[in-house]
């Protein structure tokens, strides 16, 4: 049966005056889509057919309204025009006229205004449809978690999929998978949205006109001539073997790989250093000192979650005894890693090589004539650290091969190899320099050597280097076949397009960065009829194997003996194949590294290309969650911008939102600028992934396409020239003020921090934590919380502002997306935000990332002012928001010092029964317009744990309740639990002397507290950087604190 909350969710907030009495059936049928799909996949093809029809119907029936709502998200012409206006907000928000639903809403509302609503609107009759045969593992209303994996640029990130009656709703990290460690990044979380995205291509296209799978397989079987296969980075053993099979079967077939985010430099670097293709893995848990050469290792690359965790584990300071590692960072543009650095130096990307050579020289390798402008004593301190501690040097993927080679040499010289860095065989099925591979491919295409090109899960027309002009080359290919989730730039230029099955819909396997293999198991039948790469390739072998057949076949042969089913179930259960991680290799760096001619950084203006921190290099362009996610530090949404340094802005007379023209060679683009504190002086950062033309309704036409300037040999940075234009462009940022030194901010002690030395000097009363002596005095007796008392602590030292928590929260709590125009007027809905503050000089500031959600104040200012009593405290001390009681006076938001409350100014939540509705978490109410909402500490999880414990007649154990943000956090900066339980992690952390409450002087007694940010500068460089503390005598305050 399916009295599944989801149907009620689908039915939207009926009580909230919107008319949804219609189509109870459809609601139910949708749930059946969820229900009929069991992960076991014994479904008859017929039932799958039903699903397709249903979705097709839905698409026609509900499509219109759905697009309308998307129209509001995407930048349509009217929206562009609307942006040009001087005061956009002077005009009413973009909305179409009243449609039926709204009219009914209006009707209902006006009747309700007459106080009659209860009498005139009858309850709609809901249907209950039982299973014919109930699958025994499904207990209605109880989710099942399945282990699987999602690949990012080919590398697996282990996930656990929350599955409600066969309807996947959320992704979480898989603790037993090294690429995840139980954490998950924003992109992988958003994969679930990508799966349900109604923009995905739904049918096979031949030359743009609709066709079907059968005629496609026909066409394939009749193909002859040279076949070329283009894929992204492939780590999947099964796919690789399948491709090999095709290569063997078809003479003259070739396999090319290209992914805009690749390991070319690492491989080429190892070529120089070791003469062979091997890749380094870093053991940050061992490293006391880390030197990063423009490497954003905590927030980019396949190992980011592992590295972020390991690196942060060495920075958790609770007491004066604790120690921490030290990070030296030279980087061209601020990154999450740079934000954590103890010593950070903005430096042009091209200058890093020179710097690396200097360091090498300092540790006795080669010699250099270059002298980067460093602060006094910087190099000495660095070398002192590198040589006297367990250290490691990390080179960034965007840095040229030679830098990687030099880093390898230094690591060897300082004895890091084997301790803090090990070398391994690449996890890629076929390691190669992809920039060459794509070049060969284009040459072959142009020279007519290729008759059939199969492009799997790649979009070269958009992301291949501009100078290769892939689009033109594609015309020289007789038959081009594109397999992809979207009908994208490449698809529309191909003679065949086949909709691809999402990784949540199909079988597969993939390796993590360290080689560990995960099996990808589907959660639901392909809802838009997608096909997996394995199925498509099978056609070329003349078989009609399903992906499931191929995978099982491969593993049956691969699995070493034993009972295969046992092995198989074990693997599916764990999500990883044991002992598949690659073993360390012995490698000696060549002495010839430093014979390479040194290249010197040009001192003109330099462009740095980086994948967008949220939407990557285009994979997630159509993800409204990630588009609306404020980018780290800039807090920009729905756009990319040219990040420039304050100095450059002054020199060129530029202000944020001015549009500049950037010229590289004969190519040039217009881009709005955003002034970025800490940006290297003459470096301009351009993020790729924008300026899409065929991404989908959400992603089309947002931002500018930086790929235009990107050539094959200068894929990562290139010198350029800029000219200021008269134009202005409306960039939307969710945070307008963040410079701690500016007017009226300095003495608010919002974010607090100091050096490890400061802390160790006053381990009991660190002055920077409690700059203002705060005497709580109260007229009334306080409430006692003798049961559970939920609380949260956020460790600002290890929070790197990666945003994983925000998307996790969005996914867990059904948080709607509002679109650029609404964000522009300050109506973003994310319950959790990561505030960014800059301390010190704007040219090289100290970065603070402060996640802020509802503080669940014990003396919440929001509660006494609500006339409806819609926000109250419960017995656990939670600040509860009762949506259905809320009338929307918004007084609570006014009175909240933290401004963490979010209001549904319009009908943001999707109430139509389209595919997106399947995404909703059935355990969380969908909020309608006119209702205030906010972080609830994931109360649905607390209640679930509470009921379970009560049914088992026990108490909730520490760790039973994990909030969405906490589970996602790669660095475990968020600790949550029962603060009344002496032994709980959170209670222990709260005892730390670094613990402080935001605006605690207002006597709000917040349940969410922060650990002051601790940095660990080298003693000789320690310019005491302590924020929050008063200019003088912070210790005396500490003493005062001790006094009472």
């Amino acid at each position, binding site marked *: 049966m399916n009295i599944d909350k989801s149907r009620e969710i689908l039915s939207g907030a009926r009580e909230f005056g919107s008319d949804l009495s219609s189509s109870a059936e459809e609601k139910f049928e949708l749930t059946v889509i969820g229900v009929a799909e069991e992960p076991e996949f014994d479904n008859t093809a017929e039932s799958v057919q039903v699903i397709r029809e249903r979705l097709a119907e839905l698409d026609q029936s509900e499509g219109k309204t759905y697009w309308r709502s998307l129209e509001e998200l995407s930048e349509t012409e009217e929206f562009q025009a609307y942006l040009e206006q001087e005061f956009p907000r002077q005009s*009413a928000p973009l909305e179409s006229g009243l449609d039926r639903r709204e009219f009914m809403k209006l009707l209902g509302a006006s009747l309700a205004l007459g106080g009659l609503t209860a009498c005139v609107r009858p309850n709609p009759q809901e249907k209950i449809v039982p299973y014919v045969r109930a699958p025994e593992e499904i207990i209605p209303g109880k989710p099942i978690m399945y282990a699987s994996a999602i690949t990012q640029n080919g590398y697996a990130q282990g996930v656990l999929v929350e599955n409600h009656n066969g309807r996947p709703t959320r992704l979480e990290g898989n603790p037993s998978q090294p690429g995840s460690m139980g954490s998950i990044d924003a992109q992988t979380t958003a994969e679930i949205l990508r799966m349900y995205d109604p923009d995905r291509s739904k049918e096979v296209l031949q030359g743009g006109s609709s066709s079907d799978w059968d005629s496609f397989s026909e066409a394939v079987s009749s193909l002859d001539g040279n076949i070329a296969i283009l894929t992204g980075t492939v780590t999947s053993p099964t796919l690789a073997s399948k491709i090999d099979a095709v290569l063997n079967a078809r003479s003259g077939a070739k396999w090319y790989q290209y992914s805009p985010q690749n390991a070319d430099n690492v491989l080429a670097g190892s070529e120089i250093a070791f003469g062979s293709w091997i890749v380094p893995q870093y053991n940050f848990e061992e490293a006391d000192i880390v030197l990063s050469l423009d490497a954003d290792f905590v927030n980019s690359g396949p190992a980011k979650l592992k590295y972020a965790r390991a690196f942060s584990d060495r920075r958790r300071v609770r007491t004066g005894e604790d120690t921490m590692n030290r990070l030296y960072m030279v980087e061209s543009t601020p990154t999450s890693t740079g934000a954590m650095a103890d010593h950070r130096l903005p430096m042009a990307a091209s200058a890093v090589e020179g710097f690396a050579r200097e360091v090498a020289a300092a540790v006795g390798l080669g010699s250099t004539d270059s002298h980067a402008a460093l602060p006094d004593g910087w190099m000495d301190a660095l070398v002192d650290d590198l040589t006297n501690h367990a250290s490691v040097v990390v080179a960034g993927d965007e840095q040229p091969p030679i830098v990687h080679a030099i880093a390898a040499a230094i690591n060897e010289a300082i004895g890091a190899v084997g301790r803090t860095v090990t070398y391994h065989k690449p996890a890629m099925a076929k390691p190669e320099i992809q920039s060459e591979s794509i070049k060969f491919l284009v040459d072959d295409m142009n020279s007519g050597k290729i008759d059939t090109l199969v492009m799997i899960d790649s979009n070269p027309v958009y992301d291949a280097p501009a100078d290769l002009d892939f689009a033109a080359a594609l015309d020289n290919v007789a038959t081009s076949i594109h397999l992809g989730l979207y009908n994208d730039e490449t698809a529309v230029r191909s003679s065949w397009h086949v909709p691809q099955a999402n990784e949540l819909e199909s079988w597969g396997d993939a390796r993590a960065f360290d080689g560990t293999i995960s099996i990808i198991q589907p959660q639901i039948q392909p809802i838009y009829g997608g096909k997996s790469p394995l199925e498509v390739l099978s056609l070329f072998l003349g078989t009609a194997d399903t992906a499931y057949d191929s995978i099982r076949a491969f593993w049956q042969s691969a699995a070493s003996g034993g009972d295969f089913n046992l092995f198989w179930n074990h693997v599916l259960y764990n999500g990883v194949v044991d002992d598949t991680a690659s073993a360390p290799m012995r490698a000696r760096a060549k002495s010839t590294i430093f014979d390479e001619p040194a290249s010197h950084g040009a001192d003109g203006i330099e462009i740095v290309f980086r994948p967008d921190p949220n939407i990557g290099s285009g994979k997630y362009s159509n993800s409204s969650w990630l588009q609306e996610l404020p980018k780290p530090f800039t807090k920009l949404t729905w756009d990319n911008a040219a990040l420039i340094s304050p100095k450059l802005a002054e020199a060129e007379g530029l202000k944020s939102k001015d549009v500049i023209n950037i010229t590289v060679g004969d190519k040039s683009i217009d881009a709005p600028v955003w002034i970025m504190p800490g940006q290297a002086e003459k470096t301009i950062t351009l993020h790729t992934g924008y300026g899409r033309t065929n991404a989908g309704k959400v992603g089309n036409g947002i931002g500018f396409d930086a790929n235009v300037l990107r050539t094959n040999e200068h894929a990562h940075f290139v010198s350029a020239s800029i000219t200021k234009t008269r134009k202005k462009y409306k960039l939307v940022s969710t*945070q307008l003020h963040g410079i701690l030194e500016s*007017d009226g901010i300095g003495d608010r002690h919002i974010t607090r921090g100091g050096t490890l030395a400061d802390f160790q000097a006053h381990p009991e009363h660190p002055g920077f934590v409690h700059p203002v002596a705060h005497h709580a005095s109260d007229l009334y007796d306080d409430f006692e919380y003798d049961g559970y008392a939920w609380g949260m602590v956020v460790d600002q030292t290890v929070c790197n502002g990666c945003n994983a928590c925000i998307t996790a929260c969005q996914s867990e709590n059904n948080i709607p997306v509002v679109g650029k125009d609404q964000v522009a007027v300050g109506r973003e809905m994310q319950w959790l935000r990561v505030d960014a503050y800059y301390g010190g000089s704007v040219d090289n500031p100290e970065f603070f990332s402060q996640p802020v959600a509802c503080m669940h104040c014990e003396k919440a200012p929001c509660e006494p002012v609500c006339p*409806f009593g819609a926000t109250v405290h419960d017995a656990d001390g939670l600040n509860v928001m009762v949506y259905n009681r809320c009338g929307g006076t918004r007084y609570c938001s006014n009175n909240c010092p933290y401004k963490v409350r979010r209001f*549904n*100014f319009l009908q943001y939540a999707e109430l139509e029964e389209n595919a997106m509705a399947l995404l909703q978490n059935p355990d969380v109410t969908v909020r309608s317009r006119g209702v205030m909402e906010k972080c609830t500490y994931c109360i649905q999880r607390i209640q679930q744990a509470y009921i379970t414990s009560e049914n088992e007649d026990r108490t909730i154990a520490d760790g039973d309740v994990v909030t969405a943000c906490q589970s996602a956090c790669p660095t475990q900066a968020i600790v949550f639990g029962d603060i009344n339980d002496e032994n709980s992690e959170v209670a222990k952390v709260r005892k730390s002397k670094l613990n402080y409450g935001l605006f605690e002087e207002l006597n709000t007694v917040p349940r969410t507290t922060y650990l002051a940010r601790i940095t660990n500068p080298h003693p000789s460089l320690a310019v005491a950087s302590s924020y929050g503390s008063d200019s003088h005598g912070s210790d005396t305050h500490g003493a005062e604190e001790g006094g009472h």
Partner: protein
Amino acid sequence: MALSLKRLRSLPKGETDRVIGRDARTNQFPDAGAIDDVVNAPVYVHPLKTPMWWIIGFCISLFFLSIYITSVVYLIAKGTGIWGNNIPTAWAMPIINFVWWIGIGHAGTLISAALLLFRQDWRTSINRFAEAMTIFAVVCAGLYPILHLGRPWVFYWLMPYPNTYGLFPQFRSPLAWDVFAISTYGSVSILFWFIGLIPDLATIRDRHPYKFGKIFYGTLALGWRGSAKHWQRYMRAYLLLAAISFPLVLSVHSTISFDFAVSNLPGWNNTIMPPYFVAGAVFAGFAMVLILAIPLRKVYGLEHLITMKHLDNSAKLMLATGLFVVYGYGVECFIAWYSGAETERYMLYNRVFGSDYGWAFWVLIFCNGVAIQPLWWKRVRYNVWWLFGISIIVSIGMWFERYVIVAITLTRDFLPSSWGLYVPTFWDWAMFIGSMGLFCTLFFLFIRLLPTIATSEMKETNWHLSHVGDPSLRYKENEEEL
């Protein structure tokens, strides 16, 4: 016999006096009936003979009223998002207008209640339409908090009644206080007004030239026959109502000010708020009284009932309360500095010199502080054009005061990361203009259908005057009492 309005207006002033037999020197009417004739003349006019100026004015009001209705419908269809409100500026123009309207209301009750208690006989000429103004202003104001709700259709949850949820309103909230304060204020004002009307309605009943008029007004008059016993109870009740309304009117705007004073926001959390708001309300109220009285006495030829003396007194009150308001600004600044709290100080800095909204502060300083200074001079107080102009400026100024207090304070409070901007939208303005339409519509109906001056009280006063002698003496006393 009723004089037709046309005839009255056609006559030169001295002549009017002669016709209605008013003694220009003592300012008395030997013939009490003449007061009826003058005041009630417009009411006696046959519907089909309604003067053109009224019809035109009424239609214009209706037009703006339709704008109001349109914006309300659109609001309910779309949601509060059609306004410029956002986070952090969750309250903005609707609340500003609400406070503005409710403030305007206060002069009416104050005139009718307080001045009655202080035995200010001159009030009798203006209290009737001042009370009407109060009621209509309260209507305009009262609608705002309801429409301002995210879900207006659940406003009735704010009433304490036994419901299926087993819930009561949350009585700690100033907004819950507002519900009680405003509903009490509205209903008591209407009651007070109606009680005052009864004898005059009886007068109209007895003199109305047409049958339907006699029935209509007769019904409203409840069969009043002016018996001495009735008069005795009536006057006692009237006095009690006045005595009750006086603290009420003070409490209402104090309660409104609690919406801000009780919160914890820098710039809102001030103890000065209640007195400062009440003074502001009376200030704005008397401005509105003048805005209405000056044209009214002209078109209805009531110069000899609403004399320059009345305008003069109103102007003096306006000046006094205006100065109090300015003092309020001073105290706010002082407290902000004296508190020593970064947030408080920055709030003030942002209000006064803020790059985004600093100008608004100076606008209000000019309107409420500078523009009223000419009122020190008698010549200005005795010049209707000056008074009218200054009153308009003051009304604008008081609107800006609320704009600064509500919207601008919210744009920058505690947490810099959440600081924002606020820009009103088309619909914000439409609803504001529209609410004025509502007010005017009601007021036009009032001056057409009901006596704009309390005639029975007027007669009584007049009779008193004839005993006390030269009225100008009494006015002298008044001034001292003021």
